[in-house]
């Protein structure tokens, strides 16, 4: 589809992109802006988790482990003098390679076995990060990670990433890149084979899908993006610690993804923005905040199993049915 045709068909997307680009001019509060930047960054995490979990149906609980590999990779490389722009793809590739290595044994298992095997790998990564003191700095972590150096674009000149606005645009660019790649991927034949694996692995195998290769590819791509998000995270925040790779992070993204709506492209992004904002709004509950959040979580997963996107599509379906029925009644009355 040409760019022009795309814009004619999907004006809403254009509007959203314009809105995202204009956002720094609309938000004056630094604190809120920080939440927005983290929302964009965690959207990359949830989108990539969505590929393996939502579209391919394999519950990977090692996502923060790969995020951590990317974060430590970029942190250690940039501190050693490697440019961020080289370190980022390298660290992402390392995360992807680690994904390949760990996917080979674990993806042969099914269902809960895979979830628990990946959970174990995630815990191992954070424990190693905490104890391999010579390399990772132990529980203090790595501090003083340089922020991304200015990027020279011919004709425009250097773009520095010192300000929050510039950092926002940086993360936004990577988010859009991730989103476009995920969009192309899930709408391709490959994406269809991922969904076939999710829906019925045995049937998919029977109709000629190489299910193991499919799962492995999905897992490796998902971990590449998790590593990339981790690398950006470390460079923006300036310090990382084993908690960067902790299982709590994975659980957070899992909650964003499932409550936003798995196996949709908008759901993970909505979840990554809405849930932190809801948590922020519950601040007044102080010590009881997480208890209330836990209760909300259970209630939502029971009553809205397909998350926010599921609730929206259900609402649209009902509205349409109601509208059609109204038309039908009118026609009957006229006839």
């Amino acid at each position, binding site marked *: 589809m040409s760019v022009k045709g795309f814009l004619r068909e999907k004006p809403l997307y254009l509007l959203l992109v314009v809105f995202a680009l204009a956002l720094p001019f609309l938000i004056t509060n630094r604190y809120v802006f920080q939440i927005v930047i983290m929302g964009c960054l965690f959207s990359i995490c949830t989108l990539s988790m969505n590929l393996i979990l939502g579209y391919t149906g394999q519950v990977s609980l090692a996502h923060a482990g790969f995020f951590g590999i990317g974060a430590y990779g970029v942190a250690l490389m940039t501190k050693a003098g490697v440019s961020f722009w080289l370190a980022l793809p390298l660290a992402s590739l390392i995360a992807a390679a680690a994904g390949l290595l760990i996917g080979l044994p674990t993806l*042969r298992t099914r269902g809960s076995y895979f979830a628990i095997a990946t959970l174990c790998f995630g815990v191992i990564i954070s*424990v190693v990060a905490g104890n391999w003191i010579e390399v990772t700095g132990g529980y203090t972590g790595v501090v003083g990670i340089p922020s991304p150096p200015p990027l020279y674009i011919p004709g425009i000149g250097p773009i520095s990433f010192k300000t929050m606005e510039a950092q926002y645009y940086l993360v936004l660019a990577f988010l859009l890149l991730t989103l476009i790649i995920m969009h192309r991927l899930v709408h391709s034949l490959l994406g269809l084979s991922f969904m076939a694996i999710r829906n019925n692995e045995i049937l998919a195998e029977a109709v000629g899908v190489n299910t193991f290769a499919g799962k492995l590819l999905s897992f490796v791509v998902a971990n590449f993006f998790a590593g990339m998000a981790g690398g950006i995270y470390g460079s923006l925040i300036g310090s990382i610690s084993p908690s960067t790779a902790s299982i709590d992070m994975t659980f957070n993204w899992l909650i964003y993804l499932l409550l936003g709506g798995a196996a949709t492209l908008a759901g993970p992004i909505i979840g990554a923005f809405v849930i932190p904002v809801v948590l922020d709004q519950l601040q007044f509950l102080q010590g*009881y905040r997480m208890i209330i959040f836990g209760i909300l979580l259970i209630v939502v997963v029971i009553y809205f199993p397909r998350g926010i996107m599921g609730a929206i599509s259900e609402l649209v379906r009902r509205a349409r049915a109601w509208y059609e029925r109204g038309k039908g009644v009118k026609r009957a009355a006229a006839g």
Partner: protein
Amino acid sequence: MFSTSRWAFWGQKHMQLFLQQIFNGVMIGSTYAIVALGLTLVFGILNIPNFAHGHLYMLGAYFCFFLMNQYGFGYWISLVFSVVIMAMVGMLVERLVYRPLQDRPHINSFISAIGALIILENGVIAIWGPQGHRIPNPYPGIVKLLGITMSYQRLIVIVSAIALIILLQIFIKKTTAGMTIEAVAQNREGAMLVGINVNRVSSITFAISSATAAAAACLVAPIFMISPTMGAFLGMKAFVIVILGGLGSIPGAIMGGYILGILEALGGGYLSAAYKDVYAFGALILILAIKPTGLFGREVN
């Protein structure tokens, strides 16, 4: 220049250290066995991935601490009360957190479990604070045998665990309620056909699983500190044991628990104490690489 007696002395020291590690391993393994046993009933038989299992264990220890500290109850009375309360908490968790999601994909139960563990952990923090607490050791004495130092409390853990495991076996094999659990384990549809109320079995299984976890927690509480996160790693290790021992296999869970306890004690003593907690996780990945269904496992759907 070394005299033989000196070598013998060195060898004896070595042996003592080894036996001491084995003893500690069996002690920890006892708790692993009980906790894994409760989880294999819930995860293996009811097919519910109860990720809050370790947190229920933690809550059991806190009830014991609360009753002893607040009301001055004796250790054993507090333990019994804690077990009874946790049986009810377990039933409540099953009813509110898991039953509404019975026929939904696993991942939904998983999110619900995360919700439950967030509530349990933060509830305990809200009431008792994030810091650790200590339960006064009711039996501070020690005995020395073959050069191994054994505290009374550690011996009590080992003996009580064996008693608990035997009691549970008798319950499952000899009582009607227990046999319904085994019937559901063998054939869910068949059990329903002969008139077994699967929801009630679910409820009973959760009660037993939480009660036994509470018993294990109360038994080791006087040895270690209790804290809101004490159950997190334990819960994950229990999952590893259940998978390696075979889903729903009670002997597998017991054996797996003891083996893991001993391996951790030896690994912690001879290899590296810092990585003690992750041996089990590494072992799981390695074993699944060789045998994707676990050591004694059957295929899962």
